[in-house]
């Protein structure tokens, strides 16, 4: 590994960790999503350095789309217009601190205990071809099952969560909340009859 590769690794590693940490310090859902994206892009670039071009670039590609969709859906389903209003990004403090420490210790233990393989792949190895053969050969059933399950989960969760809208159940006609407790719904009321031509008396 050359000095340039080493420097690139440390820069990407630092970017991944710092932007990952900032996700929890920012006060906006949109910023949190894209800080996480920055972290994933840095990880994807490290995978490029490790000689896994398909996995590295696919990570960047998929995370770009995913974080974009995530930012949009979070803003859509939460009471924070446009994600620009300040908002605390962490909750369940005690539990999450405990979970964070447990995860860190667990992963660190795995890292220290595992005997990592130390046989560099030859530079002319056809890694992308091999990966394709693996994904669409022996591992196809696992790969496809996971893919279809994820898709079904996404569709189902959107259907389930979009019924209870911000202004009441979507299938009953949503009504904005009143400005004063027990008052009329805010905003313009729908007129009787609804059609055109009734406004000009």
């Amino acid at each position, binding site marked *: 590994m050359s000095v340039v590769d080493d420097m690139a690794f440390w820069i990407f590693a630092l970017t991944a960790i710092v932007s990952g940490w900032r996700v929890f310090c920012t006060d906006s859902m949109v910023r949190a999503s894209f800080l996480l994206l920055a972290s994933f892009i840095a990880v994807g670039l490290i995978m490029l350095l490790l000689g896994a071009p398909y996995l590295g670039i696919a990570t960047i*590609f998929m995370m770009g*789309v995913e974080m*974009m969709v995530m930012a949009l859906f979070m803003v859509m389903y939460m009471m924070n217009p446009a994600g620009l209003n300040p908002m605390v990004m962490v909750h369940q403090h005690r539990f999450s601190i405990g979970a964070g420490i447990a995860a860190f210790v667990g992963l660190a233990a795995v890292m220290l205990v595992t005997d990592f393989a130390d046989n560099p792949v030859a530079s002319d190895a056809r890694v992308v071809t091999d990966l394709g053969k693996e994904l669409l050969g022996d591992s196809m059933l696992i790969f496809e099952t996971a893919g279809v399950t994820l898709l079904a989960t996404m569709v189902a969760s959107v259907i389930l969560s979009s019924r209870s809208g911000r202004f009441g159940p979507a299938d009953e006609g949503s009504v904005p909340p009143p400005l004063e407790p027990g008052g009329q719904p805010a905003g313009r009321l729908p007129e009787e009859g609804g059609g055109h031509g009734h406004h000009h008396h």
Partner: protein
Amino acid sequence: MTPIVLTMTWVAFLLGMAWYIAVLDGLWAAAREGRQPRAPLANPLYRCATILRQQSNLTEAPDLLNWRLAPALYAGLAGTGVALVPFSSASVLADLEVGIVWWGAVEALTVVVVFLHGWSANSQLGLIGAYRYVAIGLPVMLISMFVLIAAALPAESLAVPKIIESQHELWNVIRQPLGLPLFLLLGLSLSFRGPFNYADSADLADGTASEISGAARLVWEFARLAMLVATAAMAATVFLGGYLGPVLPGPLWLLLKTAVVLVLLVALSHLFARISPSRMLTLIWIVLMPLAFIDLVWAGLVAL
């Protein structure tokens, strides 16, 4: 080509082609209004000078980091896209084994950058443009990925040079007739022009760009042109055989094909009207997406 010559060719290609689109746009506008074009070749440069002389604008409480970075990132993404395009069999700036996936990442990150540009200005017209762009930009990106995968099938490789090699006998535009037209829509969408201008349209007073002026606007407008150059060069490479061609040298063929694709893209962006975002979404998901599937199935059957 040596690396230095290659880099200079890349810069010249980006700048020259962006200028070429600006000239075409100017000529088209003059023809439509029935007037004689004034200094059509120098006009884009005058416009650059005019924008640069403007005072730069600042909104109330913007997300300054993202707002300032977005135009530069957008231009950078366009540049990375062009870097994938081989000028001849031995000269490509980014010779990646998975070039098509990298192009997919460029598309995905473009949607992110355009959204951030509109969002970070903290202005409502910009924000509407940003949301509309994501809704339209993501499915159009899916369509383009399907047609690109179809184009990679006969080459049995995700590398752009290999895809060109696979077109020695027959260009992909004939082998997969649906591919190029669907890919051209991506060009309009990535640089939000004409019927796909949902980000910076006139009904939003320039949308995501409604609050920028000065250097930031210059970079933003250049980046839009550069992104169109990148898509056109990619279309010429993946569907029209890239540098392949008789008599003339390879780079010249690429230049000619890109220039022709750009004429087509400029014509499309001026000839077609923009429909409302919801109707466009229906058109994309109900009509264009199945067409992309047909293209993919077609390519698969031919490859079998």
